[in-house]
């Protein structure tokens, strides 16, 4: 779960990472008032959960209160990568003499936290690693030992920072690492970390992702507003308890596992176009599949449904009852093809066939999609 910049900044402030003065605003008038209290000039920043807001015009400097109003209005009217801007951050503008990058993230392969530091801040870390690998220093942190201030100081020395600068940045690196651990972060990133003309270091952006699986022990994030990045159908899927990713095509997919779901999506994509990726995980019940039928059919333009199930941990025959019940209660005018292999497959086939679902009694998903394509052709 990604946090908004202001949520990340709140966290930074709480954990001892210095940030400039900032306030949130939801209207031009509100922004004017906040800027007046803070003092000019200010930077007005769109609060959206996506990168590239600068290029999209979502970050603007305002020198006067009138300008704060006009700039805020312009930013609130923006859509950045299809996401509406509902609020802006008003931050005091600081004079920057140098920009750094500091990040802590999970090194998936080594299974341990990694601290990344670069003297070329401001651009994305991927670009940095590609264009200036010599300026990027990374260090795997043994999680059971953690990161000491001494080690952090050594790390920043390698990046060419010593004396007072080194001490400040090392302190920030340690605070960021502690924040990462304490709040179950997947990513905690300051880009840029800047040195101002008076020699202090400030975090000018806050990018923090919290591990979804850890939210049970972080109730403070549970109510956070990340649902903003999900489409309405994706939000609905989350309520039902399945994973759904909206795509551009016409063939709806219901699969009982992530890998199978992706494989199905790929196979559909060879000749037709998938309307969605959807997988149930291991908790199939009649109600769950009833709800997923409703979900995938809410997408406009769906021309067929392909159901792809394996009975390992999943009780497919229970799920089939839900599909059939849905079709009995609703007018489903598109072909529904199902493949079901594993425990209870015979029972599952009987239930599907009794309820108007076309069953493909083969193993290969390719055969099922061929059948579905034929049914679509016949329908034309």
């Amino acid at each position, binding site marked *: 779960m990604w946090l908004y910049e202001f949520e990340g900044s709140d966290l930074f402030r709480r954990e001892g990472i210095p940030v400039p003065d900032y306030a949130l605003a939801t209207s031009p008038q509100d922004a004017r008032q906040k800027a007046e209290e803070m003092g000019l000039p200010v930077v007005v920043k769109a609060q959206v959960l*996506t990168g590239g807001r600068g290029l999209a015009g979502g970050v603007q400097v305002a020198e006067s209160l009138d300008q704060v109003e006009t700039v805020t209005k312009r930013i609130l009217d923006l859509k950045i990568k299809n996401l509406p801007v509902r609020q802006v951050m008003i931050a005091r503008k600081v004079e920057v003499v140098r920009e750094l990058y500091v990040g802590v993230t*999970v090194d*998936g*392969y080594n*299974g*341990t*936290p990694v601290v990344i530091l670069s003297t070329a801040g401001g651009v*994305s870390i*991927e670009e940095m690693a590609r264009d200036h690998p010599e300026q990027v220093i990374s260090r795997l942190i*043994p*999680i*059971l030992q953690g990161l000491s201030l001494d080690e952090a100081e050594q790390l920043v020395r390698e990046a060419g920072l010593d004396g007072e600068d080194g001490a400040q940045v090392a302190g920030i690196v340690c605070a960021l690492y502690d924040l990462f*651990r304490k709040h*179950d972060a*997947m990513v905690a990133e300051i880009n840029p970390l800047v040195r101002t003309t008076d020699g202090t270091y400030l975090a000018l952006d806050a990018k923090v992702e919290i*591990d*979804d*699986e*850890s939210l*049970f*022990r972080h109730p403070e994030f549970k109510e956070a507003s990340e649902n903003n990045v999900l489409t309405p159908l994706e939000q609905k899927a989350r309520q039902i308890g399945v*994973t759904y*990713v909206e*795509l551009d095509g016409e063939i709806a997919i219901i*699969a*009982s*596992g*992530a*890998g*199978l*779901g*992706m*494989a199905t*999506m*790929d*196979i559909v*994509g*060879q000749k037709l176009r*998938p309307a969605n*990726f959807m*997988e149930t*995980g*291991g908790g199939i019940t009649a109600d769950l599949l009833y709800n997923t039928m409703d979900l995938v059919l809410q997408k406009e333009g769906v021309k067929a449904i392909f159901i792809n199930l*394996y*009975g*390992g*941990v999943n009780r497919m025959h229970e799920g089939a009852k839900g599909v059939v019940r849905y079709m009995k209660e609703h007018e489903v005018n598109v072909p529904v093809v199902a493949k079901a*292999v*594993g*425990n209870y497959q015979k029972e599952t086939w009987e239930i599907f066939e009794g309820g108007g679902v076309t069953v493909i009694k083969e*193993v*290969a*998903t*390719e055969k099922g999609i061929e059948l579905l394509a034929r049914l679509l052709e016949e329908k034309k």
Partner: protein
Amino acid sequence: MSILLNRETRVLVQGITGSVGRVQAKWMLDYGTNIVAGVTPGKEGEVVEGVPVYNTVADSVAQQGVTASVIMVPPFAIKKAILEAIEAGLELIVVITEHVPVHDIMELRAIAKERGTRIIGSNSPGIITPGEAKMGIMPGIVFSPGRIGIISRSGTLSYEASANLSNVGLGQSTMVGIGGEPVIFSSMTEMLELFENDPGTDLVLLLGEVGGSQEEKAAEFIAQKMTKPVVACIVGYNAPDGKRMGHAGALVHGSMGTQQGKVAALRQAGVPVATHLLEVVDLVQKCL
């Protein structure tokens, strides 16, 4: 021959009295797995499907000589369950449980590495050595005994690939589900090394998906160390940027973790990569 698991392995089920644990214990027993004990704290003295239940892993080791555990406890209990299994000195731990926090996995992984305990998962369908035993939730009927080793990041993907292979008489030596999380306990590369050294395996099938760098690292290992043929299939060609595709670890981030990148790395290492699941069968037949 096989890797990690055979009909003699003395298996413990942690969480055997839960709703999933009970059903799965029965199916594992029906398959022939040598389940000798179950553990649920506070349930000592119960018997599930003829299997005695103990309060602690240490008790199950002392009483039944357990060497391997398959864990099916809820996420909130997982950290304690894994720690207990490590401390009891087990050789192999298979974690089926899904939704384990990543920081917990990182800590437990570090402890397991220090102790030399092999852990598979989390969010794994388990391990099956067809015709002998299974520690996990996979449907036994799609697998058949044979000489192809399978390493998969996804349960359902391994089921379909195995069923396709079984249909044409190509059985499997062992299938290991390494798990769909961003951080897993044992890597694809470690499993490749086990299959390379297993006299019962002639060819290894890698089933990958978008996200992370398991496949890229595996490609390096294959180019440098593998003498046995490897075939791969990587799913998620159409996965959009920034969306988790069902598994927490299945995430494309910009140019990182894409299906296309993984396919290129594997092909560079000389591995034939199938563009869809059924093509795996043709490629395996060609490479044998």
